[in-house]
């Protein structure tokens, strides 16, 4: 007897939906919403790194671009919530076109070039006051409303994030099982062979960057409403590195892994917040230890364990039901 | 000299060798033939310590090699020329040879042997300062042999030395093997070209899916119907 593959996902979704019904604490809801936003980021990264093998450290920059565009539109022009999210995504996607010349770089070169892009975007955010408010940050982002109804309450905003996360998840799932997804994993495994099969590398990679940037931009837009104050120091290249950790920690290439990874990376420092000076040491050690899980990631380990449990369970049931058969 | 008893090796869940027995006497050349994935390379890797056996023993001159690291096994005079030449691409020809004589037992006479290598392969002397990676396939094969000479083997493990080589280069390789034999080196030879391997050797083993299915004098094997059918076949074009 085998577990239907969609079942764990469905259970996880139900649990996520139910969280605000059980946990009313504003702090935890706030942090969980942040984790949902991070999960959207991690999904975009999974497309890049897990599927296409593109080690991009530019996702933090797109996140920042999305956040600032959405935040500025909302604060200065009163553009409605969903439109600003879309605008954040589109702006990030448009900015990703700047990367087209460097998509042909590989491995470390790509990583470092995109890191450079992150650094440049951070400097622009920091220095171009007329555009971003500069080092003093962007303040007074209004509370989000949907169709005239405020969705700023911690629980409602959480659900809004969750809905968007689910949409992004389904989209990524479909992409991964499509012709485009197959082309990306072909590129990931052997570029020359992919070209020999008629796959246009620069074109496919640029599209991949574009989709990932769009996702990061949308996540940035959500973050703008979540924090309602944007500061350049939230969008340094550290952000990009953190996003990369999320994608790997849960299980490289796995979409559920990205979501779990995001929760781990966001929640762990929160859980450790009271451990004071030891906090980051414990976090660093945890990252190292989790890396020992190999490409299974947390999700892989968990499903192995679950499969074992499930196997135990079904064999136990077989054992229990035996006497009845004998009857 | 070399005695292998009931040797098994697996790569994770894949069993590559399933209990093979094999012996090689001093000074002898023994061939190992078999189809793709039969476990020929794995046998050599197990002897030189690159993969750990999951069962059985490997004895060399009365000492068991199980559990020794490759670098320790080299010290005992077992030199493995692996599949695909594996020369160091960003070291010069001379540095590659230098590395060949890295083990303590080989380090002493390395100047003299290097001259022998250059005498046997004058082409390598011409290319002394060139990076290994920029050599042509044939030159790389010569370098791989030269590197093995530097290590001064008593037992030489050769894995498909003719792979991907032009026919005329294969003849060079045969001469190099003859050179080793003249020095009294014992050779265990793996070749896809079964006819070539059996012509060069005194005895042969036929491997299939990780097991020895036949062993005999090479002269006998070469005419054995089973070997004939699987590895030799009609030689419709050999005559000119």
């Amino acid at each position, binding site marked *: 007897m085998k577990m239907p593959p969609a079942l764990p996902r469905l259970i996880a979704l139900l649990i996520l939906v139910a969280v605000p019904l059980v946990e009313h604490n504003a702090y935890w809801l706030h942090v969980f919403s942040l984790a949902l936003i991070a999960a959207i980021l991690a999904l975009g990264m999974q497309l890049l790194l897990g599927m296409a093998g593109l080690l991009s450290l530019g996702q933090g920059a797109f996140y920042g671009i999305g956040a600032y565009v959405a935040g500025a539109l909302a604060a200065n022009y009163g553009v409605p919530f969903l439109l600003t999210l879309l605008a954040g995504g589109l702006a990030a996607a448009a900015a990703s076109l700047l990367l087209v010349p460097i998509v042909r770089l590989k491995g470390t070169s790509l990583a470092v070039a995109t890191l450079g892009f992150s650094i440049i975007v951070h400097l622009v955010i*920091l220095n171009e006051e007329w555009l971003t408010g500069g080092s*003093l940050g962007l*303040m007074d982002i209004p509370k989000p409303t949907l169709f005239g109804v405020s969705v700023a309450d911690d629980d409602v905003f959480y659900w809004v994030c969750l809905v968007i996360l689910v949409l992004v998840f389904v989209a990524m799932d479909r992409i991964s099982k499509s012709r485009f997804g197959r082309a990306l994993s072909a590129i990931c495994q052997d570029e020359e062979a992919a070209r020999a099969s008629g796959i246009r590398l620069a074109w496919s990679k640029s599209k991949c960057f574009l989709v990932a940037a769009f996702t990061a931009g949308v996540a940035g837009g959500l973050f703008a409403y979540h924090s309602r*104050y944007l500061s350049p120091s939230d969008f340094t290249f550290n952000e990009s590195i953190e996003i990369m950790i999320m994608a790997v920690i849960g299980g490289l290439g796995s979409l559920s892994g990205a979501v779990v990874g995001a929760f781990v990376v966001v929640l762990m420092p929160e859980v450790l917040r009271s451990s*004071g*000076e030891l906090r*980051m040491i414990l976090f660093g050690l945890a990252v190292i230890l989790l890396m020992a899980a190999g490409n299974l990631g947390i999700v892989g380990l968990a499903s192995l364990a679950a499969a074992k449990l499930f196997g135990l369970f079904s064999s136990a049931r077989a054992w229990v039901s035996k006497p009845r058969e004998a009857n | 000299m070399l005695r292998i008893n009931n040797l098994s090796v697996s790569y994770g869940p894949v069993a590559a060798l399933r209990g093979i027995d094999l012996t090689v006497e001093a000074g002898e050349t023994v061939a190992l033939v078999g189809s793709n994935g039969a476990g020929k390379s794995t046998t050599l890797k197990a002897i030189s310590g690159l993969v750990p056996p999951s069962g059985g023993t490997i004895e060399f001159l009365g000492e068991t090699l199980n559990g020794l690291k490759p670098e320790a096994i080299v010290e005992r005079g077992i030199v493995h020329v692996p599949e695909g030449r594996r020369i160091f691409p960003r070291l010069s020809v001379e540095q590659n040879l230098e590395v060949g004589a890295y083990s303590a037992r080989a380090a002493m006479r390395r100047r003299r042997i290097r001259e022998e290598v250059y005498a046997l392969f004058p082409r390598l002397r011409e290319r002394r300062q060139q990076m290994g990676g920029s050599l042509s396939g044939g030159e790389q094969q010569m370098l791989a042999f030269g590197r093995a000479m530097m290590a001064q083997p008593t037992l030489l493990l050769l894995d498909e030395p003719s792979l991907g080589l032009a026919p005329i280069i294969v003849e060079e390789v045969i001469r190099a093997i003859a050179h080793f034999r003249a020095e009294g080196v014992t050779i265990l030879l793996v070749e896809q070209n079964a006819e070539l391997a059996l012509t060069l050797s005194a005895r042969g083993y036929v491997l299939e899916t990780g097991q020895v299915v036949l062993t005999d004098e090479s002269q006998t094997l070469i005419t054995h119907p089973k070997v004939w059918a699987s590895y030799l076949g009609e030689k419709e074009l050999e005559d000119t």
Partner: protein
Amino acid sequence: ALADTVKIGVFGPMTGDAAAMGQSEKEAVDLAVKEKNAAGGLLGKQIEIIYADDAGKPEEAVNSAKRLISKDEVLMMIGSISSPASLAASQVARQMEVPQIVVAGTAQKITTAGNKWVFRSPVPDTKLVADLVDFIHEKFPNYKKFAFLYVNDDFGRGGFEAFKKAGAKYGYEIVAEERYARGDLDFTAQLNRIKASGADAMIEWSRYTEGALVAKQFAQIGLTLPRFASDGVATPKFIELGGNAVDGVMFTTHFSPATVADIPAAKSFIDKYKAAYGRTPDAYAAEAYDAITIAMLGIEKAGKADRAAVRDALAKVEFGSTRGAFKFDEKGDPLLVTHVVKIDAGKETNARNIPVQN
């Protein structure tokens, strides 16, 4: 909620680049609370301090504030150090209606956004700078052309904007505006341009780490301009790192052992702090010490563990702080005089005592 302790949340950078300042904050708070608890606590209960690390980042400051308020259910909060972190957290304080006393964020914005829940221990940068400008005008009437070097973040930027505004009053001209990024190590490019600018004096808005390097490189390229600096260098570490290169620097500050000699609260604070930690307190420690003192006074005055009552009580607190008689204005900023210190042969001295030059 009926707790058996009075919970106060204290947040700030315990890790990250600004960890040193967070440490001063924590030490000062610990000192005050230990004393108070030993004396019987507040409202008949012990004070419980709950610390949260925000690593100096706004995003984490928001998380910390939310956590302190809704998970730990603190009565009020103290923090953070940097302006962006304090500002970000103050949005939470306002939304969830919890009193907050900012320890060291000097950006004017923090208290001018109409947020009645936020107070701060230091004076805002605008006041600090205006006082410094008055000081320069009074003591060095000949200086008219200034070079301004600042760290490109909220702190340096705030100082620069304030100087532009305050200097206009005396017709000051800025002949060089130079900035650098947090964490930069090499300032020779900026200093060389300042050297060439023909300024009468240099104003520098740095924190002490960069400030010490600026001072050294200032000496190395042979600059001799008079130098005025921000409260960011108001710590003994500045002199330790800068060595004799910082001699002659005049800086504005909220607190300096050299200028508070006649304030009794300051004397006892310095002694106690030295006894407890073996070092002289810096301005951050003094600001944090005052903040926690205000908090305790406010809570006592409110007489009950009620956030709204505490807020109203805080607004009316008056006491003798380590920096003199303390009282909030209507925005929540303290009405304090600022200090100017001159470093003389590795020692802090009160610059207001130096004679007028002309």
